[in-house]
């Protein structure tokens, strides 16, 4: 009874927080779109330079089936890349966290490695896996996602609150118990910080990898081809679809975080 009556207002206030967080962003977005639309008409900007948002939306409606079918394979690749990158990143983080002494060295190496422009590997992966293979795209995105997830998760696993460490030590808890009850739950928020960065990177990775050729029916290919044929409204509509995909993946990560780590979203009492 008590539980129910207390839980309800908490739920509500979380929903209120989401609205409050999203509302300003939506407002700013709307203002920018209106300014864009007005600017195109006022300054008579040619569509091949910059089409008006209304023209992009119209094109989106007209070519919806083309864009939607191109987005299908891209979406699968994005999800595949994000999952593969996140999974390998988390596994690598666990391995590094087990060897605490070497962790910092490894993190520095990883930081240096992550400076490399991974998308530049796309043509190489095309040669390895075949240009039309989904794997050649997924590999690029997975590597891009791997780095932020691995670094954030490792740091999360290694940073234990001193009091939690002392408490577990005073109870003579095993290393395994410390891992399962303190390190892992403590690292969940860091993991999702990495995943949110990774979500954006996975879309970039897939789209750019698709520029380098592959199945004809993909968003990246559609963007590259339509631009080559000067079908700029279609290019823009496809870019908008890719942005939408990025937003959806980002939103999905946030949603999963709320389910996996609800404690992060309970409002503090003070």
């Amino acid at each position, binding site marked *: 009874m*008590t*539980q129910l009556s*207390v*839980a309800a207002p*908490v739920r509500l206030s979380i929903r209120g927080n989401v609205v409050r967080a999203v509302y300003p962003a939506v407002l700013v977005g709307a203002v920018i779109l209106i300014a864009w639309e007005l600017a195109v008409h006022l300054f008579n900007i040619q569509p091949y330079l910059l089409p008006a948002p209304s023209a992009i939306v119209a094109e989106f409606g007209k070519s919806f089936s083309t864009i939607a079918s191109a987005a299908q394979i891209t979406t699968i690749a994005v999800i595949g890349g994000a999952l593969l990158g996140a999974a390998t990143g988390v596994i690598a983080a666990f391995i590094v966290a087990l060897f605490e002494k070497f962790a910092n060295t490894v993190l520095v190496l990883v930081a240096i490695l992550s400076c490399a422009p991974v998308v530049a590997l796309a043509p190489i992966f095309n040669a390895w896996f075949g240009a039309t293979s989904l794997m050649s795209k997924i590999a690029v995105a997975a590597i891009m996602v791997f780095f932020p997830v691995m670094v954030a998760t490792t740091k999360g696993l290694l940073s234990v*609150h001193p*009091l*939690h460490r*002392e*408490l*577990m*030590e*005073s*109870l*003579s*808890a095993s290393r395994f*118990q410390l891992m399962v*009850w*303190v390190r892992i*739950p*403590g690292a*969940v928020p860091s993991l999702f910080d990495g995943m949110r960065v990774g979500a954006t990177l996975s879309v970039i990775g897939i789209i750019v990898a698709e520029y380098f050729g592959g199945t004809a029916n993909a968003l990246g290919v559609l963007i590259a081809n339509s631009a080559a044929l000067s079908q700029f409204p279609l290019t823009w509509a496809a870019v908008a679809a890719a942005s939408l995909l990025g937003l959806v993946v980002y939103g999905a990560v946030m949603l999963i975080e709320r389910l996996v*780590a609800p*404690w*992060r979203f*309970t*409002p*503090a*009492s*003070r």
Partner: protein
Amino acid sequence: MTINTPVTDARPAISLRNVTKTFDAGGGLVHALDDIDLDIAPGAFVSLLGPSGCGKSTLLRVIGDLVKPTEGVVEVNGRSAEAARKAREYGMAFQAPGLMDWRTIRRNIELPLQVQGVPRNERRARAEEMLELVRLTGFENHRPRQLSGGMQQRVAIARALAFQPKLLLMDEPLGALDEMNREYLQRELLRIWRSTGTTIVFVTHSVSEAVFLSTEVVVMSPRPGRIADRIPIDLPYPRTDETRMTEEFYHAESRVRTALHSVLEPVQVG
């Protein structure tokens, strides 16, 4: 039944010999503890009192084997402090609650039992019991962040008492509480101590709290941390709220206060 005054011929529950602890705090050595000799009888309730920074928390951590002394020996029931910790003889409550955000209140209290592999049903029953003891029934499914500082402190006490440790080490556990709850928990602590025969080492800043609870008050002096005075409190148990108003209580308080003041007032300048 209860040992009110230390029995000198029995083997001490806790024995410190020439315990010194220096911290190398970047830029100079801090002598947190200097040549501490202390015997604590089984079943004693000893309070540590002294100005901020005199080493009370450090002494508690040394006894609990969370900090290794620079010099000297700590024995617990005739064994090393480490052996006692490994045998899970300690229950600890730290100066800050140190609850785990990812656990509900109930699961925070269950943690020590979980570490010891107590079956789920038993754990639950015990947690309910402890919640009732600290008057937080109804909050079992809340998250730590939803509780006030004083409430969190009470959860930390419940967690320390959840399993029946042979030794209870408590660092200002009632510091953040309101007067009513503090006096209530003082009485409860005495009740638990008398019914279980646990040895308690208790850090506090309150003279009247130390006198009300303890069989002995140990007054410490700062820089370097030393034992300045040991004052046995001969007030009979059970101690009740009436005890606080007796002349004997007032006398005991005065003695402790005098000892504390001689530590606080800079007798010689230099």
